[in-house]
């Protein structure tokens, strides 16, 4: 019988759970599509966190029951959702006034590349993916704290936390924290380098060094 390869690092839900540790009571939070959405399932009991959807809603509830699906009630990923007793609705202009105006405490976004100076690329692969930036550029420009959750390396094994982004940028010098399947990097302000503050179970600092081309402190 073949020896089972021991699972190493964090899976998608564990990455989301790690991001959820950054939540604080009373926070207003915007979650991106994909792994960031899973953060909603990991909000600690007893903590009040209000989720914002950039298409014009504060207070996102869970997915609706089948007989309560409402086409007029969707999130920014265009999925059907439900409302909560404290929900409010507003226009896209008001929604982004909230975002751009620095009223949202935290945004958790996906990423394709992050540079060592906190640049983010996550909206376009020239010649391949042409979907558009949606609200990502506004979020990174206006939200107080930005966490990127992404795989540590691409499918080809190329590092994604790199000296300089090769893809078109979403924002320049905007990222505060990077959570990958292998490690967590953080910086206290936008003038400081990132520091490796945590590695996933079974992952060594040496492995992180081998799989990261960005400069960071340990």
């Amino acid at each position, binding site marked *: 019988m073949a020896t089972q390869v021991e699972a190493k690092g964090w899976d998608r839900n564990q990455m989301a759970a790690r991001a959820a540790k950054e939540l604080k009571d009373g926070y207003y939070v915007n979650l991106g599509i994909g792994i960031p959405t899973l953060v909603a399932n990991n909000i600690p009991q007893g903590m009040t966190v209000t989720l914002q*959807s*950039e*298409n*014009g*809603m504060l207070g996102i509830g*869970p*997915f*609706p*029951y*089948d007989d309560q*699906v*409402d*086409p*007029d*009630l*969707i*999130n920014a*990923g*265009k*999925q*059907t*959702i439900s*409302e909560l007793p404290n929900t409010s*609705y*507003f*226009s*896209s*202009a008001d*929604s*982004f*006034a909230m*975002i*751009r105006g620095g009223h949202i405490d935290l945004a958790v976004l996906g990423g394709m590349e992050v540079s060592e100076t906190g*640049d983010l690329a996550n909206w376009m692969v020239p010649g391949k993916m*042409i*979907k*558009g*930036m*949606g*609200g*990502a*550029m*506004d979020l990174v*420009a*206006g939200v107080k704290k930005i966490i990127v959750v992404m795989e540590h390396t691409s499918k080809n094994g190329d590092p994604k936390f790199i000296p300089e982004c090769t893809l*078109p*940028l*979403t*924002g*320049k*010098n905007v990222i505060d924290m990077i959570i990958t399947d292998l490690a967590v990097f953080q910086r206290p302000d936008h003038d400081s380098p990132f520091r490796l503050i945590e590695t996933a179970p079974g992952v060594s600092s040496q492995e992180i060094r081998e799989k990261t081309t960005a400069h960071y402190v340990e």
Partner: protein
Amino acid sequence: MQKIYPNAEAALEGLLFDGMLIAAGGFGLCGIPERLIDAIQASGVKDLTIASNNAGIDNEGLGKLLRTRQVKKMIASYVGENKEFERQYLAGELEVEFTPQGTLAERMRAGGAGIPGFYTKTGVGTQVAEGKEVKTFDGDDFILERGIRADLAIIKGWKADESGNLVFRKTARNFNQPAATSGKVCVAEVEEIVPVGSLDPDSIHLPSIYVKRLILGAPYDKKIEFRTVREREAA
């Protein structure tokens, strides 16, 4: 002054011309002015520039105008889930001005509020900033974005009274409100028209001054892009 028209075709009479700029409400397929889009398609008007967050999906919403090649240029933030759009864009048949979602909303709001341009931090240091004026305020860089003043705004509301006061429903408000204000003329379609006096004046989302023409678009068969549900816990 009668604002209510019998149908979308009548409501658009005299407003359409080739090469015009149209601002459209909606987010994905939520809150899109589908009757008005159908009437624009039927009119055959062409070389349109359309400012809208999305471009519909294949053969739904603005996707219908793409299929008939009536659109010359899109000003949009997100155009995924639309193969015909992708094909026309890659073939160089369709011009696209990718605009961050919040910048697009504010461009409509500003244009409608008589503000020709504004500075924003969104897009600084990215390709969105290329060719735009950069100004430093309190140590941070901002780029100049232009307000949008559209020849025509098309929107979808929930209820309107006969004078054009209008309310939206849940997340179907989205771009409909800023798009409405950005139009030199705004035509609205709604699910229900009620007598004047039956809407709470304190709860109007779009005051009647912005709604020049109004149609009852019902019945609607509202489309859902991603139907996501949860199971009921066992009793």
